[in-house]
């Protein structure tokens, strides 16, 4: 199990070839290397590669996010060739890591000081940035991430959330940075994941609230019983009860998972 990097090579006529695994100079697919004690199921998957000349040698490199929320560098040799072994990007305090999971790198000189900083979305929502304090022409020296755009407030599960209620991105943010309105300042596009919640057909919002509260009580009891179960038969029965309860929610609420794109214009 590994998160492969896919590339759609451009054709001379402006169209694209179908996605292909990106391979290293050894001819093998590029993958994030596993460190001691790391798990391929979480450390190598959900890869998010972005191409940037990280070391200012004139060749595009890959800075890659992953499920864990760390970042790896695959050095480029030009013309789509990359060294096979990725390097974990570090700060003075340890690996560069976002708050949350699903690191989503965008590398840009955000603070306009001549070096490349790293911005990222997160499973938690919001946008974070790691300042590079190395200065122009020096090897990157990154500070730990800090919040640039705060994540959305956590919503109580089971509450109605209509599309019209949305005021900004919710969770699992993915970003792009550019000067979208041409005013000389960098702006941020943010994609997200949001679960819209509505009462099931024929129910009012108040009825949904009432039924949800009753369901939650049963759910909490079932989970407590599962956690307390000691023998295999009791565990199986408790687990079955939890599994049976989950789809019961569909009797009083409708959920729709989707995602939108939000624009933050810098003032």
């Amino acid at each position: 199990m590994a998160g492969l990097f896919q590339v759609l090579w451009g054709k001379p006529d402006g169209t694209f070839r179908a996605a292909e695994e990106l391979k290293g100079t050894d001819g093998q697919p590029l993958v994030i290397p596993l460190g001691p004690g790391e798990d391929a199921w979480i450390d190598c998957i959900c890869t998010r590669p972005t191409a940037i000349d990280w070391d200012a040698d004139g060749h595009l490199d890959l800075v890659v996010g992953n499920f864990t929320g760390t970042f790896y560098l695959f050095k480029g040799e030009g013309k789509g060739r990359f060294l096979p072994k990725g390097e974990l990007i570090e700060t003075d305090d340890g690996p560069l890591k976002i708050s949350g999971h699903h690191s989503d790198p965008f590398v840009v000189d955000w603070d306009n000081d001549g070096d490349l900083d790293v911005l990222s979305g997160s499973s938690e929502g919001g946008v974070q940035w790691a300042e590079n304090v190395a200065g122009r022409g020096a090897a990157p020296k990154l500070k730990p991430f800090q919040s640039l755009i705060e994540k959305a407030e956590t919503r109580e599960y089971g509450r109605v959330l209509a599309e019209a209620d949305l005021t900004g991105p919710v969770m699992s943010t993915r970003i792009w940075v550019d000067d979208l309105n041409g005013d000389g300042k960098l702006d941020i596009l943010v994609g997200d994941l949001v679960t819209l919640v509505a009462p099931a057909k024929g129910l009012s919002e108040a009825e949904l609230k009432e039924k949800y509260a009753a369901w939650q009580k049963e759910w909490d009891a079932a989970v407590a019983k599962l956690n307390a179960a000691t023998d295999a038969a009791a565990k199986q029965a408790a687990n079955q009860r939890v599994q049976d309860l989950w789809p019961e929610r569909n009797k009083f609420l409708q959920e729709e998972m989707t995602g939108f794109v939000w624009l933050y214009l810098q003032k």
Partner: protein
Amino acid sequence: MRPLVLVTLLQFSAITAWAAEFAAPVRLEAGGAAIRVDSPGYAAPCWADIDGDGKKDLLVGQFDGGKIRVYKNLGDRQLAAGEWLMADGKVAEVPGVW
């Protein structure tokens, strides 16, 4: 006097970029409707000139099918309705995305 003004402007530029302030977020629309991705979400935007007309367009990746929708920039802050990105004559799909 002129160098001093230049230095001051450069310092001001660096300070304003670092202490970023943003206007309230605006949900992007195309073809008169909000841009949204299929269930289960995970919209991933990209702003790039995909058709070589000199204007950057919006591309939005999604989890479902690993597909990417292209919203062409019509100018005047208007985006055309989305169309799936094509590759080798078919809707482009990034493998490995359930």
